[in-house]
């Protein structure tokens, strides 16, 4: 409909005024689709013709040596970096290249950073409160009051991440592993469709790692989860499908056993790790 005829039509909300809240369309079964994505920084091709499809409800692990482009890939999906060429679709309805970081977060993509990033001056409870799915514009945020339901939801996540006894402590005094957990908890509060998790077990002890593996596996199904990880043991314990990145593109994809038997993979990555 042209703009003029839209303005004349007083029965409907104008297209350009209607908020874009359309839900993610996954009827083809794919939640994230990247095609021929390339990006270079000062001539260095960080991502080189990357093709990747993540199914709805899937748990996918992405591995690769340092500099393979794992973090850059996450930056592209979450809107932090614009690719030079290529397509990035969230479901079949949302072209992610048209949105910025907050809009992508509101569409339902949550991200955990490589270095745990929590708000250290705020309490654990407040960290979760801020992450909670809600109207995140300025005025509604000013007037926001916690409902009983929301308090319950926060309490539930606190139990899940095992930080209930720390809920009033500033996040800054938590241990490294606890911060990782808090950040995963913040992701859950966002109720995202797709979780991007960058190195979730870095700095964790063995039992903590096991609990994280359990948690991430339980999330798959309701959410789609993409895990970038260096720790091969951890990847083996959770992975169903593994994608190996090398020099900005996909080198191999398949189950952990297939991938680790692939000679190209052994050459560039697993060989040096002696896995």
């Amino acid at each position, binding site marked *: 409909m042209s703009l003029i005829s839209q303005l004349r039509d007083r029965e409907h909300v104008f297209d350009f005024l209607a908020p874009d809240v359309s839900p993610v369309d996954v009827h083809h079964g794919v939640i994230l689709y990247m095609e021929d994505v390339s990006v270079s920084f000062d001539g260095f091709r960080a991502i080189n013709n990357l093709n990747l499809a993540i199914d709805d409800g899937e748990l996918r692990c992405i591995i690769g040596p340092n500099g393979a482009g794992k973090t850059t890939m996450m930056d592209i999906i979450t809107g932090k970096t614009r690719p030079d060429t290529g397509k990035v679709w969230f479901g079949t309805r949302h072209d992610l290249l048209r949105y910025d970081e907050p809009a992508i*977060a509101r569409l339902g993509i949550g*991200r955990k950073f490589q270095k745990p990033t929590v*708000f250290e001056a705020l309490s654990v409870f407040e960290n979760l409160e801020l992450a909670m799915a809600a109207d995140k514009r300025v005025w509604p945020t000013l007037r926001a009051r916690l409902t009983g339901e929301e308090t319950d939801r926060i309490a539930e996540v606190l139990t899940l991440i095992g930080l209930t006894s720390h809920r009033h402590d500033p996040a800054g005094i938590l241990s490294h592993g606890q911060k990782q957990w808090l950040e995963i908890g913040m992701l859950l509060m966002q109720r995202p469709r797709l979780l991007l998790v960058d190195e979730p077990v870095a700095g964790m002890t063995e039992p903590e790692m096991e609990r994280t593996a359990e948690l991430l596996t339980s999330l798959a199904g309701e959410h789609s989860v993409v895990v970038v990880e260096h720790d091969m043991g951890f990847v083996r314990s959770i992975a169903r499908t593994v994608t190996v990145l090398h020099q900005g593109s996909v080198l191999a994809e398949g189950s952990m056993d297939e991938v680790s038997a692939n000679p190209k993979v052994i050459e560039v990555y697993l060989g040096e790790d002696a896995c």
Partner: protein
Amino acid sequence: MWWLKPAHEPITQRVLGVLAASTTAVLALHLLFPEGHALHISTYTLGLLGKYLAYALLAVAVDLVWGYLGILSLGHGAFFALGGYAMGMYLMRQIGDRGAYGHPELPDFMVFLNWQELPWFWHGFDQFGFALLMVLLAPGLLALVFGWLAFRSRVTGVYLSIITQALTFALMLAFFRNEMGFGGNNGLTDFKDMLGFDLREDSTRAGLFTITAITLGLGFWLCRALMLSKLGRVCVACRDAESRVRFLGYRVERFQLFIFVVSAMLAGVAGALYVPQVGIINPSEFAPIFSIEIVVWVALGGRATLYGAIIGALLVNYAKTFFTGLIPDAWLFILGGLFVAVTLALPQGVAGLMKHWRWPRTPDTTTQEARA
């Protein structure tokens, strides 16, 4: 309601209690004891205290953006001065034909410049309500446009500080020009009365002092209410990890813009309270060094507490009055020395020291359980 929250907060209760008690005490000493009595507070001292309180409100405005949002504005003097000029324009129009040249409408400096009629932007300032509106709108609009451009382009940190310095410097140069129509070098002065009250009367001075104290209390309340809300926690989050906040779905630049504009308006109100008490506003209020001084008050008092800003503004300005009377040339060295000493010995300022001594168990933010 979000704006009622400070009522239940011990810090706000204490600060407002102390402010109310000391204001009443000063007024009582001023009114009850005759001039010459040892306990009498003179009109001069009262005006000085009123000026300090206006500065304290300005410091609260700076602490709001610097302490909670991490935006170090080195140009808040500009918003303060704009509010001051809006009030000054009203006071100039109130002079009427009592000016030195006796012109019924034009202020003296315009007659002196041979201007025939009032410039368009001076119209309306004979109305007190309109002037009050401008006290808020002039700094608010400048902050809105400036902040929108800066925050949208994600200009933060030291770059923003430098641009705010440039902003206030540019305004200073502009206001120095006679052609701008704001009295140039001399600024606006020779005020006679305000809402019919003679500005030289003792009772008017006492009234202005009281109004300044009340406004400071209200400004403190407003800032505290903003910071106790979820919005306040988003601000602290933006200060500490801006990009993380974006990935949670908040538009950081809009939060920054909102708080920046509120802060600029508060600074404007502070300027409007300052002008009738000191009796003059001129371009020197735009001087970059003044904006830096404000930041020093806040740093000395303690960032991100709001009451620290009040303490800092009062202490430093009292020290300034004291030392410039004693050894005029040494003041800047003393200020610099104080700043270095506090930064080294008390990184959280005077407020940090007080928290440590007197309020060891009061957390800065109220617990969620009290709120939920």
